[in-house]
């Protein structure tokens, strides 16, 4: 497994994207009141992908094609690099000593990517999508950072595998629930998924993605789901004990937990209307941020009481 992991990663990521797309389609049909046949949902995803593959790539007038392409590519590259630090089982494709910070840095690439994609087509509505994502990112970056740093604090290390090791007995989600909840919320916001998808909302005609067609759109939509998969996969080593668990081998636990988190995120998307940032940035600053800070403080005190953390 050791040497295979770097090659396995893209396969797993694409499988995760597929899972998200199928589940999303099925839930959308169900929420609309049409029965959700599993077969229909499976084939629908394929059809959607095929549809974008054969479609023509159109551009708009005076668009900045270079920047738009850079944005689309950056989104995908960032998602893959972000997922690279997740331990599949016990070993990550790249187990950096600063894995947690690296993951966050790669998530932030999405800001630039979405902004570029929104800017590129020279269209007011898609630029609005770009603005919305920047506002969203600025609102949710700090709670996000505090949430993931809390996990690192509990383990006394920024390395993902150390954080997993620290959860052999009890998952971090159990004794830092506020950080876990804040992580899920803010990670969803950073992947502009679920109730946080105003940057690509219907009310601005698709927002940042509004002028993309053909392969461009396929890559963008795929990259967006990749980012969600990466965020869900990182929740597992950070809060859900990584590969720890009875009966199953470690890698199986990682997969099961990741899929569970993904399923939760996709389900929530269909339960809630879009959370717009003109309303919700205040919730992030006034509720979420102090909450995560208190959580970090509590965890720090526990670590101190235990005698100085992971050293």
């Amino acid at each position, binding site marked *: 497994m050791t040497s295979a992991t770097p090659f396995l990663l893209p396969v797993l990521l694409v499988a995760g994207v597929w899972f998200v797309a199928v589940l999303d389609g099925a839930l959308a049909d169900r929420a609309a009141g049409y029965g959700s046949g599993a077969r229909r949902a499976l084939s629908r995803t394929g059809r959607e992908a095929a549809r974008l593959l054969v479609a023509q790539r159109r551009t708009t007038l005076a668009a900045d094609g270079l920047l738009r392409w850079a944005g689309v590519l950056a989104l995908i590259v960032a998602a893959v690099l972000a997922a690279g630090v997740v331990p599949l089982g016990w070993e990550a494709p790249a187990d950096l000593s600063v894995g947690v910070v690296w993951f966050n840095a790669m998530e932030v690439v999405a800001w630039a990517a979405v902004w*570029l994609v929104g*800017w590129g087509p020279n269209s007011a509505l898609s630029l609005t999508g770009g603005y919305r994502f920047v506002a969203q990112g600025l609102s949710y970056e700090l709670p996000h950072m505090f949430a993931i740093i809390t996990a690192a604090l509990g383990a006394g290390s920024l390395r993902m595998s150390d954080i997993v090791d620290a959860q052999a007995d009890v998952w971090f989600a159990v004794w830092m629930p506020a950080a876990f909840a804040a992580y899920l919320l803010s990670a969803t916001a950073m992947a502009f998924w679920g109730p946080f998808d105003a940057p690509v909302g219907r009310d601005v005609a698709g927002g940042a993605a509004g002028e993309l067609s053909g392969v461009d759109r396929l890559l963008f939509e795929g990259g967006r789901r990749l980012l969600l998969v990466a965020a869900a996969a990182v929740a597992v080593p950070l809060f859900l004990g990584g590969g720890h668990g009875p009966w199953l081998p470690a890698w199986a636990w990682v997969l099961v937990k990741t899929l569970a988190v993904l399923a939760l995120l996709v389900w929530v998307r269909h339960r809630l209307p879009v959370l717009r940032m003109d309303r919700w940035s205040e919730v992030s600053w006034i509720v979420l941020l102090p909450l995560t800070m208190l959580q970090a403080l509590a965890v720090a005190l526990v670590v101190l009481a235990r005698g100085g953390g992971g050293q």
Partner: protein
Amino acid sequence: MTLALFTALALLAIASGVLVFVVDSMARATFALLVSFLAVAAMVLLTDLLYLGAVIILMMIIEMVVMAVFMIMYMMNPAGLMPMSMFHNTRGAAVICGLLFAGLSAGIFLADWPERRGTRPEDPTLELGTALMEGHMLTMMTLGVTLFSTIVATVVLATGRGRYDRLGDRLDAGHPDDPAGGGVGR
């Protein structure tokens, strides 16, 4: 391998640095600057400073995206539909910069650099953290206070409305008068 990587990154950093002032689109200028930063961050990663490299990537992306928003607010011609030539005093600056670069390079190659002292620590990140929390505690605290005062100062400078605008002359309005309502019902 490392050398090739370094050379590539160095060229990328310099080339995109030049592009910042050459391209005619503000968006491209901003993102050329970002590319330059990312190349430098990658070079910092090459010197084993993983934490600092990652932090530079994180910070610079955020900074440049914010800059892009300001750019749209304040710049003419962000899209490059019109040529952007906003230089002044070009010749003098070129002379100064040429001389400076020559001087710096001469200094770099003529200086008698000392030998490397000590060995690299196992984990530079840990070393940095320890230093900031022990020996350099004062530095860290100063930075913290400076950042806080910056936050206050920037808000004061940038906003055009104070509490009297929001809450009335006697600060007794029950509901602040804001152009956009907030989310927590205040």
